[in-house]
């Protein structure tokens, strides 16, 4: 009996695979990729690197997804905790299979897979967050988080007493390096003696590991913790040790009420809604979008009572300068860790330079593995 079943099964497999092989190619041809899409037919997919309850990066994206649903009344769906590996390709295809016509892929490591799948499905729109590749049907989008990071650095720099600030960081990629540099410039704009000590975790989402890294930094003498991670783990470490912290992604006050001062946060909702709207209207175009504080895609969360005196005023001043473009964060003179001047007085870094950041500014204690 068992043998019969298994033989049958092998047969079924073989036949079904032959049938399936013939039809895939046809489906894809002859679709006008820019025809308007009816609201009922819109289905927007989101791929997250962590769980939606991470209280950080993924949470912020998911809030934006809900915003899109609310504003436009279109159908959305998501898949959480998708590792930055071959699984991504499968999840993208699954979503297309389930009717997605726009997909937001919200982690750097998804980039190559999005690019690969985008080639195979020219009628589907892909928006990849934090990368640098584009195609006719693939945008990349991000925000100038370094602006808000600079502001949060001011808060941290004014708060620290040990002049040592710990920074828990995920991967040695330009996005993270840029954030660390902007933060450090902010710190040293108010406290030229302070240093920012970096610790790599090599994970986006691992609450325990992130917390451990923060603790290690505190052991090294830091009294303010900042982070480029998706969870509030480092905040908890600061809370437990009775020191201070700067969050990331979302307002993390609830997690660490005694430590949290502020956080550079994301506000993806308006951009997402605008993009989906464009697809519905047939006006969508592939782009490399790098939104600034003016577009509100990045913000600094309101300062709490723990934030140092005078910081509110200083932040407001610099925020004004950033918004009216009289200050661009990465403007000379900027020295690297060796004291060499990398950006001359009066010069500014270009977007291209910022997008491929691979060195630390003066004041950062840490190493970039190449």
């Amino acid at each position, binding site marked *: 009996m068992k043998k019969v079943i298994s033989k049958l099964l092998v047969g079924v497999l073989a036949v079904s695979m032959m049938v399936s092989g013939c039809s895939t190619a046809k489906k894809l041809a002859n679709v006008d990729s820019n025809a308007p899409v009816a609201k009922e037919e819109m289905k927007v997919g989101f791929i997250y690197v962590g769980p939606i309850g991470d209280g950080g990066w993924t949470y912020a994206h998911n809030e934006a997804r809900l915003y899109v649903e609310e504003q436009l009344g279109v159908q959305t769906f998501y898949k959480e905790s998708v590792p930055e590996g071959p699984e991504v390709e499968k999840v993208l295809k699954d979503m297309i*299979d389930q009717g997605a016509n726009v997909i937001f892929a919200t982690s750097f490591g998804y980039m190559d897979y999005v690019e690969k799948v985008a080639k195979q499905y020219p009628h589907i729109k892909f928006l990849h967050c934090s990368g640098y590749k584009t195609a006719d049907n693939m945008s990349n989008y991000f925000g100038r988080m370094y602006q808000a990071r600079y502001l949060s650095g001011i808060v941290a720099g004014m708060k620290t007493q040990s002049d040592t600030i710990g920074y828990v960081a995920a991967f040695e990629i330009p996005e993270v390096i840029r954030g660390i540099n902007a933060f450090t410039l902010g710190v040293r704009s108010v406290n030229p003696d302070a240093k920012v000590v970096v610790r790599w975790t090599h994970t986006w989402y691992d609450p325990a590991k992130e917390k451990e890294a923060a603790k290690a930094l505190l052991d090294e003498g830091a009294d303010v913790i900042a982070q480029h991670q998706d969870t509030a783990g480092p905040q908890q470490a600061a809370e437990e040790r009775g020191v201070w912290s700067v969050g990331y992604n979302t307002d993390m006050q609830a997690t660490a009420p005694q430590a949290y001062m502020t956080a550079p946060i994301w506000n993806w909702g308006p951009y997402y809604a605008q993009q989906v709207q464009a697809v519905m209207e047939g006006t969508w175009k592939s782009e490399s979008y790098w939104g600034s504080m003016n577009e509100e895609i990045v913000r600094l969360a309101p300062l709490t009572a723990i934030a140092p005196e005078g910081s509110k005023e200083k932040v407001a001043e610099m925020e004004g300068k950033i918004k009216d473009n009289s200050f661009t964060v990465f403007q000379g003179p900027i020295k690297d860790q060796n004291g060499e001047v990398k950006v001359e007085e009066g010069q500014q870094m270009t977007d291209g330079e910022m997008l491929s950041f691979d060195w630390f500014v003066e004041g950062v204690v840490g190493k970039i593995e190449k």
Partner: protein
Amino acid sequence: MIRLIKKADISQSQIMTIRIMAVFLSLFTAGVFILFLGHNPFSVYGSMMSGSFGSLYRLQETILKTIPLLITSLGIAVAFRMKFWNIGAEGQICMGAFCASFFALHFSELPSLILLPIMMVAGIVGGGVWALIPGVFKAYFGTNETLFTLMMNYIALKWITYLQYGPWKDPDALGFPKIKNFSESAILPNIFGIHIGWIIALLLVAIMHFFIHYTKKGYEITVVGESENTARYAGMDVKKVVLIGLLISGGLCGITGMIQASAISNTLSVEVSGGVGFTAIITTWLSGLSAPMIVLISFLFAILVQGGSFIQTAFQIPQSAAQMLQGVILFFVLGSEFFIQYQVIFPWNQYMQKEEN
């Protein structure tokens, strides 16, 4: 006190009854769980099925999930047949993928027809040698293979991590820890919309079935597994048989690694095996080490995985909940094996009953 008694005898129909009951119980329990999540269990189950078979694409995905499970199970079955508890398939997959990737990355100019067979052989050697190491230690020093193979997994995984973050890190990835993608010639071609691994898998099923049951080496492996004493008595070189068996076992796992790296990842990464090496232990065991049954069980398992992944997006069930569902179903199916072997005596049946006469 509840006591257990080993069943002396059990008929095939009883076994089937217990298994079918287990499946229904698991569906029922998982159904209650789904209700708590606020969904209709029937529509969730329905969409698990439709997620696995509902379209050609979904069927292809299910088959893609079957392939690595199937080949790895075939490999583990060879070791298990010798009562060598090879828990190291995960590591053997990684090392197979590593060796295959070495050629894919360093000889990427070679044409497919030459490069792919080289990668396949490299995969077999990588996985085989990784299985052979604990085998040698067991044969000559009597070390415990379960722990040894388990630990070898971590070494292999960490080795790949090291490569990914260190020497093999793609300089073009702007610091992101990934290994360079393979060139086109190092990627397995598709046949009928699915990479050629499915043909390899089916061929391997036939080969392994024939090998175990109709060749002298397969016969030796079976005898060694049944009784080492008998094997020695019959003049077999037990150590040699075990080591050859392990080369085959690890080699098959290595093939999985090569296929996954080439066709699925198009590169080497720590995600290459994705836990298949552990899942395959379950499928191997459930299929009773028989190659044709491995096809069936791996396919059913792939349905569970693919269907479970489908309902996450279809019903927006959290990933952890979907995994719990899979866990519940597995729990009952594996648990039923216990009831096939043992009988439970409850306290109210236990005491010497003095019946009125």
